[in-house]
């Protein structure tokens, strides 16, 4: 198994085989963050492609102070948010009130039937959570995903999204309260 640093050094010198290995190591995580923000498989795939293409072009700028995965994460997150912003500026099919519609037929949607062994309560919670996340704006979704799923610090999220820690805190507060409210609403419906 090649060491990631070795692969990185080889990729920097133009070795596409090494870069191919790096893609394999990080594609899942990059795709997942893009999917969680865009909530559409095809869009997430486009973002993953864009992320790795940009990364290849900018390998010389990667200073290595943070893990490669974090750097790729940042590129993917910004690219996904850019897509949402562009679409919000020019509404088109698939947008509902400025929000991306959830692709119900997606093969990768987290709301797919959970594996055997997952309790009914958790399955219900996952479905409600999925709907609640879909009702957030991309910016709020990005913040809460980066914080709760990827466990980035406030400073890391701010850097990733090119914004201030105060904005991150504010968005996170709103997103958490919004999710809590939506989950409470759906809970009361049952």
């Amino acid at each position, binding site marked *: 198994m090649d060491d990631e640093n070795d692969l990185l050094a080889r990729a920097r010198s133009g070795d596409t085989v090494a870069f191919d290995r790096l893609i394999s190591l990080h594609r899942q995580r990059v795709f997942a963050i893009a999917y969680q923000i865009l909530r559409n498989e095809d869009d997430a795939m486009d973002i993953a492609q864009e992320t790795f293409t940009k990364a290849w072009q900018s390998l010389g700028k990667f200073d290595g102070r943070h893990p490669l995965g974090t750097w790729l994460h940042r590129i993917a997150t910004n690219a996904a948010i850019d897509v949402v912003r562009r679409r919000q500026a020019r509404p088109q099919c698939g947008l509902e009130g400025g929000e991306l519609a959830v692709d119900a037929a997606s093969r*990768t949607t*987290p709301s797919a039937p959970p594996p055997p062994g997952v309790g009914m309560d958790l399955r219900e919670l996952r479905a409600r959570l999925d709907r609640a996340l879909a009702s957030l704006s991309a910016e709020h979704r990005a913040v809460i995903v980066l914080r709760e799923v990827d466990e980035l610090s406030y400073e890391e999220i701010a850097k990733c999204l090119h914004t201030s820690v105060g904005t991150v805190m504010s968005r996170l507060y709103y997103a958490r309260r919004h999710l809590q409210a939506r989950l409470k609403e759906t809970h009361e419906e049952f």
Partner: protein
Amino acid sequence: MKNFESQYNRWIDGSLSGPECEAFEAQLGDAERRAAADWTVVRAAMKEAAGEIRVAHPDFLNSRVLELIARAGRAEPRPARTFRLAWGGAACLALAVVLTAIFLPRGTPGPFSTTVVSAWAPGTSAGAFAAPGGRGAVIWIDAAAYIPAEESVR
């Protein structure tokens, strides 16, 4: 309010100290406290859902990225190309300096150089230098309206 948001986030994150936590919780109602307590479950569900996201065609992603890289004519990273261009430029410059040093006459004319033209009118200056061995000469004339036909270069 901003302070409340900040404290709320830190409370949910579990990073408030004991006394801070007690003071903050005193501001909340029962429902809010319960919702926050359930957040651990929500967080776990989010992580689990994220962990189940899979690229449908992972190998296609790799091949597509490599195809895009090749198509863009970037078979090597931009920095590597930049370095190569910089080294190429430096090498060309060094070659130019060496060639100049070899072929460009330096300093005053050599011992074999002689003045071959003299002034023939006031205000006119002329000069010329012959290369050593008589292989060639440079002649220049300043401020002359014309050169008399009977004058010859001596």
